[in-house]
């Protein structure tokens, strides 16, 4: 019978259980720690085309006049947000090391104040390591009144250590709504819930 475990065995069991519980708690914390770790990992390796969400300093280096890289800029909307986002230039050709500026216009076409943010993604993902954004509207939320327009620049630099085989870099901005959305109550949006 289990009740008959000797004192040593009981102590042993207690020790084993204590250790496994510590390991368990550790792994649970680890799972949540993986979220920031993953972000750091993405930024270090360029995994997934994520870019820094803070302004970076310009790397002072001479532009590499022998190489030209095409920077494609794409803007996209998303559902539930009556905004338009236009890049004034859809394509710029830059030398690695050189900094460049592209202007964007945001416009709220709806009839309510709304808040949104442009979320960037870079392809090929290896390039995101070498894309430095000196100024970008994507670092914070934008708030626009109905009909309001807003111009904002993106200042960026592709550093000289960009791998030679990358000739085209695509930067995509997707506009996502950040506030709760229009407050209209009605039966047709049974699921879209908070929209």
């Amino acid at each position: 019978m289990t009740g008959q475990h000797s004192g040593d065995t009981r102590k042993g069991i207690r020790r084993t259980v204590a250790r496994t519980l510590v390991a368990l708690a550790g792994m649970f914390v680890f799972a949540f720690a993986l979220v920031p770790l993953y972000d750091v990992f993405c930024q270090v390796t360029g995994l997934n085309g994520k870019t820094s969400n803070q302004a970076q300093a310009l790397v002072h280096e001479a532009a590499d006049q022998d190489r030209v890289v095409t920077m494609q800029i794409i803007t996209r909307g998303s559902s539930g947000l009556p905004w338009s986002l236009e890049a004034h230039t859809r394509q710029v050709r830059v030398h690695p090391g050189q900094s460049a500026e592209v202007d964007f216009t945001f416009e709220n076409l709806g009839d309510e104040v709304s808040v949104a943010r442009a979320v960037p993604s870079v392809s090929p993902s290896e390039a995101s390591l070498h894309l430095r954004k000196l100024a970008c509207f994507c670092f914070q939320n934008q708030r626009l009144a109905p009909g309001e327009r807003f111009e904002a620049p993106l200042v960026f630099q592709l550093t000289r250590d960009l791998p030679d085989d990358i000739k085209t870099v695509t930067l995509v901005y997707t506009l996502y709504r950040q506030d709760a959305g229009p407050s209209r109550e009605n039966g047709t949006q049974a699921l879209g819930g908070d929209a």
Partner: protein
Amino acid sequence: MASHLPPRPTAQHSQADAGGMAADEHHHGPRGLKRWLLTTNHKEIGSLYLIFSLSMFFIGGIFAMVVRAELFQPGLQLVQPEFFNQMTTMHGLIMVFGAVMPAFVGLANWMVPLQIGAPDMALPRLNNFSFWLLPVAFALLLSTLVMPGGAPDFGWTFYAPLSTTYAPPSTTFFIFSLHLAGISSILGAINIIATILNLRTPGMRMMDMSLFVWTWLITAFLLIAVMPVLAGVITMMLLDINFGTSFFNAAGGGDPVLFQHLFWFFGHPEVYIMILPAFGIVSVIIPTFARKRLFGYASMVYATASIAILSFLVWAHHMFVVGLPLVAELFFMYSTMLIAVPTGVKVFNWITTLFRGSLTFEPPMLFALAFVVLFTIGGFSGLMLAISPADFQYHDTYFVVAHFHYVLVPGAVFAIMAGVYYWLPKWTGHYPHTRLSQWHFWLSVIGVNLTFFPMHFAGLAGMPRRIPDYALQFADFNMITSIGAFMFGISQLLFVAVVVLCVRGGEKAPAKAWDGAEDLEWTVPSPAPLHTFETPPRFEPDRH
């Protein structure tokens, strides 16, 4: 915890009726239902786990039959796509978390104490609690089928954002039930580790333990390592769905791909959680019926441990087309291929154990041999899937479905059945009916291959998985698969018949029911009395 036990409600049971698996169906003990609700006996809890697992196996099986009936021919005939997706999802969840995992825990409950000469599990009351969490968890999961918006419909891998922003309202219940099932597994694992490390009979060293005990010890460590990660992932989902966080939502700065990394960090070790104990069972059965010691005992233990360690380094091979950088693709391709080495060692060891043995083919041996062959076929397709460039064509097709069903059905499930046939004489005191068992075996083997082999072709020819309707060129493969699936499904009723008949009667088995069997469980009477090894048995270390 183990020191203050309540008075055992079952203490006055006679030996003869105590150990019977499924005995509750026909046996009304003095305490009735309460006996089973409150039992802390490892044998009774083991039986409860096995009965639970068998019922889940049939429920998950019925869902699979609905899927196969719809896929019998092109077009939508029986169900709508929404319901089809709920069926595939529930089939996967129930089979993984409700059938295969509890079956192994049930076998561990029954056999680990008997194989190491312990009187019971180390933490008997915890054992009772971890079992009774399961019926609650799965009742909750199954109840989502009747909720508005239906059951989870995003596949058993529940990739965000389909499982968060776009999920049915029942998802919160799904998360809760998975939490309960996870806690149950974790408690079970703690108990098994505590039992194996502390309650071995005097004189039994780690390297004297049976391979079933070894593989379960390693599996339990895997469970401790990854179930909290699963709990973390589903908690993040819960927060995303109900509390406005953005772990997996690009709109709020999150990343849907992060979900996949976290899920598969749990998910790949999970796959080995479902196969390592199967390796253990087969490694016990083959030497018994070859009447020859297991070849390469030590290398079997090392191979199991290396598979477990490697399982933490291969998760992203499930994500080759998600847009990983080249370096990551290469790393995960190489590490995945490496798993073939320890797995190969195991297969070679089993075959060398057969070589120059003295073989007989009782039902447990038939299932174990089928396991070796069919699991190896699943291993080959696994190796093909590891080749990342080729995976761009295989990924998310029926080729993958064929692969993992080969390792899970004739792999894990056949090993569980082999184990049940092997230990039924110990549990019930009777041998399973030979003729019926043989029918069950052959119908299952034919059914399994008829079901899953054509899936390889359908996948290579271009059929994606998880679709309720398909293009005409896949029609013949699907028809054969469906016929095989019905055949396999129906033949499992034979399994129930064999088990029920065996509980009720049949040829009497002696203590050592199989003449080549060597482990400690064969030194106690058949059927095993409710309480065994109350004084630790003598153990001569020369067994392995």
